[in-house]
């Protein structure tokens, strides 16, 4: 193992984007006590129904949050990348209402909820930055409801892939053009409410359109403009360039 992150730097840099954290806020955040854990792909980090006293911050890798209906059909409700605080709600609730699972090998930092809550009480700008994160999460969920509720299969898949690529680029984890998608067909199916068979067929269409390309065993977005047009993708709901909070502080 080499180069695995050992600090909360990437989470701080995500929080600092678009908010007005001062040097003391930043130092206090980095001084939070945490325990590092590296897990293999497909390992569950949090299970629905578990008692939770820790907040999970993703330092490396790619994870999904999902829920299951009674016959075992899975719906992925969000994807997360390095720098994301995956389960802010576990600062406030005692039981996990969904499962968090690593899609690729992942490294997370577990932060005790009491320590994090205490810090947020002492540092209002940090509290605002975290609140802002939760609001962005909510905006992304609204977009997913629209995506799964109203877009056809091809647009739905394209939109989800655009979001993953766009967020990765904003976090400095890759460029949307030529971005390597870390997802299998069945994971895309579970995130878009489709069957794996239908996803395979739609990916064939996206390949034929030249919007994506096969790169070994993974896919890359080959034509960002075409992909966005197919997807009806417009990134304002991610609020990545919104600096209002930084200006009013």
């Amino acid at each position, binding site marked *: 193992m080499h180069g695995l992150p050992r600090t909360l730097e990437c989470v701080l840099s995500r929080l600092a984007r678009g908010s007005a954290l001062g040097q003391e806020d930043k130092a206090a955040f980095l001084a939070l006590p945490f325990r590092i854990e590296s897990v293999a792909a497909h390992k569950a980090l949090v299970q629905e129904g578990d008692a939770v006293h820790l907040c999970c911050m993703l330092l490396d890798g790619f994870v999904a949050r999902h829920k299951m209906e009674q016959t075992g059909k899975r719906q992925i409700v969000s994807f997360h990348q390095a720098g994301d605080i995956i389960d802010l709600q576990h600062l406030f609730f005692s039981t996990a209402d969904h499962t968090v699972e690593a899609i690729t090998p992942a490294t997370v930092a577990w932060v005790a909820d009491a320590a994090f809550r205490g810090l947020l009480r002492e540092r209002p700008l940090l509290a605002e930055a975290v609140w802002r994160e939760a609001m962005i999460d909510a905006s992304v969920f609204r977009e997913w409801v629209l995506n799964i509720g109203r877009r*056809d*299969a091809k647009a739905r898949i394209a939109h989800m892939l655009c979001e993953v690529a766009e967020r990765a680029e904003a976090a400095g984890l890759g460029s949307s053009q030529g971005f390597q998608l870390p997802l*299998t*067909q*069945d994971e895309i199916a579970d995130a878009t409410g*489709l*069957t*794996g*068979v*239908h996803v*395979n*067929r739609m*990916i*064939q*269409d996206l390949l*034929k359109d030249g919007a994506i390309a096969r790169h070994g*065993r993974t896919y890359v977005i080959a034509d960002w403009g075409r992909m966005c047009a197919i997807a009806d993708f417009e990134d304002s709901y991610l609020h990545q360039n919104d600096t209002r909070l930084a200006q009013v502080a």
Partner: protein
Amino acid sequence: MFRYHLNIYDDAVALDEDGAEYADLGMAREAALCGAREMMAARLMAGKPIALSHRIEITDGGGAVLATLKFREAMTIEP
């Protein structure tokens, strides 16, 4: 669990390069059936024609065809 590939032959060919794991061939066929129905439903809603001869072939990792599902078998039509 065994890995099966569900290759689609409709107005294009979509080979299932990754495949997916199922308990047995019956479960793989069930997945093909759900997929065929979902694709046909999407075509119906978009006002596109459905060809009953379109099919999904289920193969093993070596490419041997273990079962074929015609779209015709995935629906019941009553007058």
